[in-house]
């Protein structure tokens, strides 16, 4: 990594945060999150009829006295949470000062750090025209070094533990933005392939050729039982460009150019257009219970992590 991702003070603050999942997922190991499995925690979950072999200690004798039938008490099992960091690494993410990709990888690293610190399983996948591990993808993250089998192609498979944190940081430091964008295909592929749904944090500028591509992608995640948080990262120049005159605009992804005489009315129309898009995204996320956070690179990413995500109740103090 070119620069230090986090300073010590920031890491200290992160350690106090943990992910909150609004859903109950079936985990692979005991963790800090409720599981669909019934377990031994003190949190009552349900009753069921007694089956031979059940622990007698779980029989609710009070009900037996009233109904003359045997029911056992079920308790919720506390399991770990899988946090899927889905990071847009298309060429458009290299736009801006600082580049959006730098902002995004810091954000992803911070969130990964929080997850790993909460004993959650954290995985990172980049996407552009496809998933980072896809051959079809023209871009993505470099393979992580160290021969870790959990990292394959442009993805870091969800894992727990300290080592995963090292892999995560190494993965982020080698991340470069390139290639086109196909959000729908990428997220659909990821949702289909993923065996353990959980909290999917999508970090992207959503600049797809088809402006509604994000809808299909996010719907696919929801369909596969993911809880989705969308972090919309933009540069100030994208939200409100100010350059006037005869411009030959070059698309960073396709290389396509458009020559325009840009005047103030056109800029206003552009801003209105972008504003309309933001509104559509917000509306979609609200309708589909997707947590949506739009941020510009001018906003310190520490603020985003420590303030805005916390306000959205996806992070809570431990």
């Amino acid at each position, binding site marked *: 990594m070119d620069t230090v991702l986090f300073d010590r003070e920031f890491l200290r603050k992160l350690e106090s945060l943990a992910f909150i999942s609004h859903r109950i997922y079936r985990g692979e190991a005991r963790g800090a999150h409720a599981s669909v499995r019934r377990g031994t925690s003190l949190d009552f979950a349900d009753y069921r009829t007694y089956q031979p072999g059940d622990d007698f200690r779980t029989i609710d004798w009070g009900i037996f006295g009233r109904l003359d039938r045997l029911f056992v008490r079920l308790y919720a099992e506390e399991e770990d949470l899988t946090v899927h960091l889905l990071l847009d690494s298309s060429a458009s993410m290299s736009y801006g000062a600082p580049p959006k990709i730098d902002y995004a990888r810091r954000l992803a690293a911070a969130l990964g750090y929080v997850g790993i610190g909460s004993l959650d399983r954290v995985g990172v996948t980049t996407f552009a025209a496809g998933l980072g591990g896809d051959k079809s993808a023209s871009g993505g993250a470099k393979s992580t070094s160290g021969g870790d089998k959990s990292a394959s192609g442009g993805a870091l498979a969800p894992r727990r533990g300290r080592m995963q944190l090292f892999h995560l940081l190494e993965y982020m430091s080698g991340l470069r933005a390139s290639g086109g964008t196909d959000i729908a295909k990428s997220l659909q592929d990821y949702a289909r392939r993923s065996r353990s749904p959980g909290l999917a944090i999508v970090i992207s500028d959503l*600049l797809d050729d088809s402006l509604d591509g994000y809808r299909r992608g996010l719907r696919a995640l929801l369909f596969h039982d993911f809880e989705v948080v969308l972090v919309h990262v933009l540069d100030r120049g994208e939200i409100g460009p100010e350059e006037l005159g005869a*411009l*030959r605009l070059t698309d*960073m*992804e396709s290389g396509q150019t458009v020559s325009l005489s840009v005047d103030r009315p056109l800029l206003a129309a552009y801003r209105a257009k*972008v504003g309309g898009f933001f509104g559509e995204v917000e509306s979609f996320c609200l309708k589909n219970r997707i947590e949506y956070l739009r941020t510009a690179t001018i906003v310190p990413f520490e603020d985003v992590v420590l303030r805005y995500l916390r306000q959205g109740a996806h992070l809570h103090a431990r």
Partner: protein
Amino acid sequence: MSLSSPLWLLLLLAVPLIIFLHALSIRWRSTPVSSLVFWKELLKERKANMRIRRLFTSLVLLLEVLAVTTVAVALAGPRLPSFGRGGAGDVILVLDATASMQVREGARTRFDLARERGLELVAGLRGGSRMAVVLAARRPRLVSAFTGDRAALRRAIQDAVPTDEPGDVAASVVFAMSLRDPRRGGRVVLETDGAFDELPGVDTSLPWIRVDIVGTAHDNVGITRMSFRRTSDGDAPCELFIAVRNAGRAAVSVPLTVRAGGQVVISRTLILAAGQRSTLSVPWKGPVVGRVEAELRTGDAFPLDDRAYAMFAPARRVQVLLVGPDPWFVEKALASLPGVTVRVQAGPAPEAAGRAREPPDDVTVYVGVQPPALDKGNFIIFAAAPPNLPLRVLGSLRVPPVTGWSRTDPLLDSVSLAGVTIGQALDLDPGPGFSVLAASGTSPLMLSWDHAGMKALLVAFDPRGSDFPLRPGFPILLANALSWFFPTWLEAQADQVQAGNARVISTGNAADFTVVKPDGRRVSMRSSGSSTEFFDTDETGFYRVESGASSSEFAVTLTDDDETDISPRFNAPGAASPGTGETAGIAAPVWAGLAAAALALMLLEWLAWVWTPGRTRA
């Protein structure tokens, strides 16, 4: 529209330069963007607006191009016709029908083209407008009075034909102007070939006068004069004088043939440089009675002036009655003159014969005898004073010296009185009407009288008492006197009249006579006395006059130096360039309006430039 300085139109070459500079001035700045998706959407949605904006951008260029174009046109000095082919108000159409309008322009003549434009004018007449049609030739001819009847006007124009006459177009235009009623907004349109230098008396800058030039420049060679002149050469009774003009831009060699009595008398080839006038003067060896026709074989566009016609009338000699005792010197001098027959009457003055009101002889000469009261006729009187003239004889002068004489009077042309000795002369006191030709002190020695059909040369002394008859000036004085009495005395009686001019026809006692024109048309005339003027000489060739059992012929010819130059050269302001075949109007210049328009365009261009969005950062 005509342009006075069309070279200024070269300024239009700046237009491509402006466009090129505009293309250079647009500097596109390359700007990378994360995605074009929003821009493309905008372009799709705001396509119309973007187009308007591009138009606005190009409006600057458009205004610049318009401004340069307007300036160029303004500098070129355009002049727009102040009225169109038709329009409201009366129109007086003047069709040039002079001989040069017969010049061929391709398959048609200039007159055909003029007639066609005249018909267009009729077609363009608005309701309530009237038109009159005037043919311009030697004299203006009104072929249609003011009428709004389109069919009648078309008929009048279609029936109009060009004449063989050299023209006075200006007189016809002035005539047309006199027909104009200013209250009705009358306009005068001249359809002409412009084969003249100017229109004297016509203010061509008037906005209600328009000159349409038809026809193009042509080379032409023509006969501009043919006449016969008597000579005293014993071998030939007269000599032929022919003038030929090459009005073209190249040297030519043209065969000339002169026929008389059905035979070729002269045949030779003339070589003429560009613009050269050549004259041919040769003794006439042909018959002196009958038709004479000269012909140039040129094959040019104007064959009319390639022919000239003359008619030899029977020879007529000057009959002179010489009255006086022993007028030997005078008789000899008169007899030496060609074509003069002298009859001498010695003895008393002709009172015995009575006062003849019509002198039987052409000239009566009194030498030393008192003439009777004289009436009409031609007289030469030596040393006497007619009683009925305001001339008093105060006495006599002895040896009066000649102290002065007129050197400009035709009677004393080439006559010198220096050193003439005069023994005695009458001391005359002339009244009003006399011209003194020579004098001795205050006493006249020679006088002329020309009044009421009487011409007289009075000499105050008797030639027999002077040495003047011994001097060369004496027969010259007599010859000059005969030339004064008969200006064509020394010319052969080759009868010829120029087309369009009146021919005086002597009809004697006949009440009616008929003139047969060259094309066979017969014109019946009623005599108005012993002679009648015949004006219908619009066609060149030989005319026959039939009066009872007798008949005579006369020739009508063109032979006009100006008419031979058939190139359109009228260059009045606003007239079309010759050869363009365009409608030319005499009109007010419009450069001032165009200059104002150019200024306005430049102002608009500046405003558009200022208001162009993003101009400062583009």
